[in-house]
């Protein structure tokens, strides 16, 4: 079928083009706009009526004029997918930019993606080991989970994401792992950093990369994560791979959403973001999951650089309501020179409960997590008190907790960018740290677990002798 070309553009506003006198056009249909100079831009129908069609142009409306030709392609946006996509780099609208050939598609999939029937979902329960102690020990990531990094500008969230992408694995199974990486509005420098790192570590082999850079059209950002998730769904549900999707940076995505909303003169919600921001974000995040009877899974790590570190900002807030917890990248720890600066206190992994314990990780995992969390929380509270009353006013016990917080940050949270800690060593480290505290203070750990794992009850030197000491 030869599609008709219309030259009936009436208005061009921001990323939107208004076309009149068309044949009936389907909502959400893909549109080609041919400019007088021969370039072709792509867009999508946002509103279709008998009088007027509103098209949102992905590559921006620069140099479109009223004589440009508009063609409606009669289908919604589709992504050609194939296993050959692994190891390839695409731009934000799915065109290869690594100099390689076009992907020969095995299938063409609609990028909107349908909602998973809740009845078809499998309750996520298998842990993913990232090799990062603070995550594995205290915020265990579970297959099919969506766990964002709540970060801010100038913090090393990209490094953390890369380290997770490199090191992620499933305990004791030979499952095939793939990483789908979608960048939205990141700088060229950041993109280079990601690609270099993927190449350096060989992670690119198992990755599919989509890059929408800061100088690429903002509207394109609205489709980049959907392309990435479509590729991920293909790899997970048809190629049986365990897929980790990294979306950076969701704040830029939301900005684009706001931009389009403003151009359409919609009634804005909080801070100018459209009223449907929650639903729109959910249509991305909810594509994480695991389906009954399928081997593959999609786990998401969206990255948010939260403006002003203010978690009540709509993007962070709405994300928190949809995702299953959050990993807090802390400016305070970063300033102290600790990498990865993950503060476990405001962090949470909601699905952790389902993925840890005997048969999953280890029977003492819950105890270690609660013990470390409580002790670190108490230690940090005491820091506040010390600032007022001085360290001398503290009791012996309190001083132990105060020191514990420092040691915990230094030994447990801090680790090298290439340091891939085994799950066992994370838990051992946790016990060594707990052994620094008086045993009576470990009220959250039951007797049996304590006697089984506490260094004092095992035939080995206790933490203090193994070199974990407060360094002044």
């Amino acid at each position, binding site marked *: 079928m030869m599609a008709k070309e219309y030259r009936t553009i009436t208005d061009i506003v921001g990323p939107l083009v208004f076309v009149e006198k068309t044949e009936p056009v389907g909502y959400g*249909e893909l549109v080609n706009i041919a400019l007088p100079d021969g370039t072709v831009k792509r867009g999508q129908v946002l509103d279709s009526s008998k009088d007027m069609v509103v098209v949102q142009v992905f590559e921006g409306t620069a140099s479109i004029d009223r004589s440009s030709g508009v063609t409606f392609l009669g289908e919604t946006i589709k992504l050609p997918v194939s296993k050959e996509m692994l190891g390839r780099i695409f731009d934000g609208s799915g065109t290869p930019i690594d100099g390689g050939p076009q992907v020969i598609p095995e299938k063409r999939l609609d990028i909107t993606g349908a909602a998973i029937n809740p009845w078809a979902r499998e309750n996520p329960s298998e842990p993913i080991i990232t090799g990062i102690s603070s995550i594995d020990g205290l915020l265990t990531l579970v297959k099919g989970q969506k766990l964002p990094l709540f970060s801010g500008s100038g913090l090393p969230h990209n490094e953390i994401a890369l380290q997770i992408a490199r090191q992620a694995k499933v305990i004791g199974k030979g499952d095939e792992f793939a990483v789908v990486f979608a960048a939205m509005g990141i700088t060229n420098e950041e993109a280079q950093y990601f690609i270099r790192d993927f190449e350096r570590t060989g992670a690119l082999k198992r990755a599919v990369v989509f890059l929408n850079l800061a100088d690429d059209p903002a509207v394109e950002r609205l489709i980049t994560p959907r392309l990435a998730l479509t590729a991920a769904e293909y790899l997970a549900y048809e190629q049986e791979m365990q897929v980790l999707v990294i979306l950076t940076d969701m704040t830029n995505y939301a900005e684009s959403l706001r931009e389009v909303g403003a151009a359409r003169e919609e009634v804005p919600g909080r801070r100018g973001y459209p009223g449907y921001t929650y639903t729109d974000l959910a249509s991305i995040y909810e594509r994480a999951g695991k389906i009954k009877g399928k081997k593959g899974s999609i786990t998401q790590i969206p990255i948010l650089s939260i403006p002003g570190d203010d978690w009540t900002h709509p993007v962070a807030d709405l994300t928190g309501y949809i995702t299953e917890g*959050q990993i807090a990248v802390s400016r305070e720890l970063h300033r102290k020179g600790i990498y990865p600066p993950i503060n476990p206190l405001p962090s949470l992994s909601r699905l952790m409960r389902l993925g840890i314990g005997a048969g999953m990780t280890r029977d003492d995992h819950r105890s270690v997590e609660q013990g470390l969390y409580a002790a670190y929380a108490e230690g940090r509270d005491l820091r506040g008190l010390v600032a007022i009353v001085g360290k001398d006013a503290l009791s012996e016990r309190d001083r132990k907790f105060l020191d514990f917080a420092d040691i915990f940050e230094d030994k447990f949270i801090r680790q090298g960018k290439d340091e891939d800690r085994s799950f066992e060593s994370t838990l051992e480290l946790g016990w060594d740290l707990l052994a620094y505290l008086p045993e009576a203070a470990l009220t959250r750990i039951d007797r049996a677990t304590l006697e089984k794992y506490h260094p004092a009850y095992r035939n080995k030197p206790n933490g203090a002798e193994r070199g974990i000491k407060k360094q002044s």
Partner: protein
Amino acid sequence: MAENSHGEIYRVAGPVVTVTGIKPKMYDVVFVGKQNLMGEVIQIRGDKSIIQVYEDTSGVRPGEPAFATGAPLMAELGPGLLTSIYDGIQRPLPILKEKLGDFIARGVMEHGLDRKRKWAFVPCVKKGDKVKGGDVIGTVQETPNTQHRVMIPPNVSGVIEDIKNGGFTVDETVCIVSGKPVQMMQRWPVRTPRPFSKKHTPDIPLITGQRILDTLFPVAKGGTACIPGGFGTGKTVTQHQLSKWSDSEVVVYIGCGERGNEMTEVLTEFPELTDPRTNSPLMERTVLIANTSNMPVAAREASVYTGITIAEYYRDMGYGVSLMADSTSRWAEAMREISSRLEEMPGEDGYPAYLAAKLSAFYERAGRVTTTNGKEGSITVIGAVSPPGADFSEPVTQNTLRIVKAFWALDTKLANRRHFPAINWLTSYSLYAGTMEKWFNDNVSPDWSSMRSKAMEILQKEAELQEVVQLVGSDSLPESEQLTLEIARAIREIFLQQHAYHDVDSFCSIQKQYKLLKSILDYGKAARSALDSGAPLSEIVKMKSRAILAKSKYEENFEKSLEDAMAEMAKELAEIKKRAI
């Protein structure tokens, strides 16, 4: 009517579709497009009818056909609702999976009730009996513990001309009333409340097995409560706890615009958990409605109505029903989204001006009533609210607070300290506490209300003392005040904190709540008298028996554990006193 029922699409903008050529009534169901997507009329402007469509409208074009059914959105009510899981417009999700696969596709209509399954209908009326709407004509054992009472539809009355006995499907005629055939299934428009004869003041508590709720901020059967809280504060866990352990006969759980994995958790857990009162799987008394955040937004708007209509149907049978709506904020957002597509003038924060009216009309469908057949039934509505930025001054929270009588404020700070349930005891309230005091005094213990006020008083006092402690540290307080802090701590840690995932602690019977709180207060009293007689505080707080007291809530045999703790405490205190003298 037939000539007005076919029209064509004029405009498509997301979930809002404009149709010309039909003359529907407001809220009539209209099918649009070649794929027959279901929608509802939400505005009529001249010859243009504006439809909110329950499914994704991608690819739908102007000019495609539309068909007006002439009837509003209906729920199918009859045996088979219990244990079901539906989407927002009552399509059974397991059947959708069977037909469409793992993802939800479009244009599939599916009956809410299974048309093939036969139910054993046992009549309880006979030929010649006079019946009116709501009267029970027979029963069906729907699940092992729930008897489904088959009722005459509200708009039918007359004399029974024929009544059957035996196995029937829901759409087979089981009774003829003055010439009208009556089936087990009835259909009811979801946006219209079902009739009842009289509403009563709710004065019987809904026992939820959650200590802070039952003891400090109880909700009545037939009452309304809301749980607002920022993300991560435990709204959903609290809602799950309530649907697991409340002493209701039927639970309707609406997952409205929330996470898919959470619904899966309910689906995995509920069949495995047993109802402490009937010892049968919790699923057998539950109806689930799941419209997750990425499912169509218009169906999300409809889901709460579908849910409450099902709840009313069981209420009419004379049952106590609890309805959990998680989360009403997502419902309000769905209204906002539709409203903004209609380019309506927005009220606060972009929400439509009719937000408050819709919220109150929904909560007003709760209540303890005498049904039209003279039975007593109730619907307790508990709505979660997800305020942006955990800021309770936003419109949905504020408008909800103007309606509901119990307010359970979830607190981000408590959640960060891992104090669960993270319900703030200082800001929460229940307006039912006063009216239900009598019930507690009569049914649990005569000193219930005095004990409750004592506990509240200590917690209040602690909050005042904490302000001082923040400045000077606790050591500079006089010992008697330090003891108050210690008792408050015991109330918080032992009584208020409750472990949702602990086998024993997850549910706490009202007797256990009473004994536990009483023991803590007794501990406080004994400790104070010891302190007064000169025993040092440092030794009092170190007593071994306090640790036993703390662990008692986790014990299957808590009574023995509490007795042990109190006996041991008496001994220890005596020794401490002796040493002090």
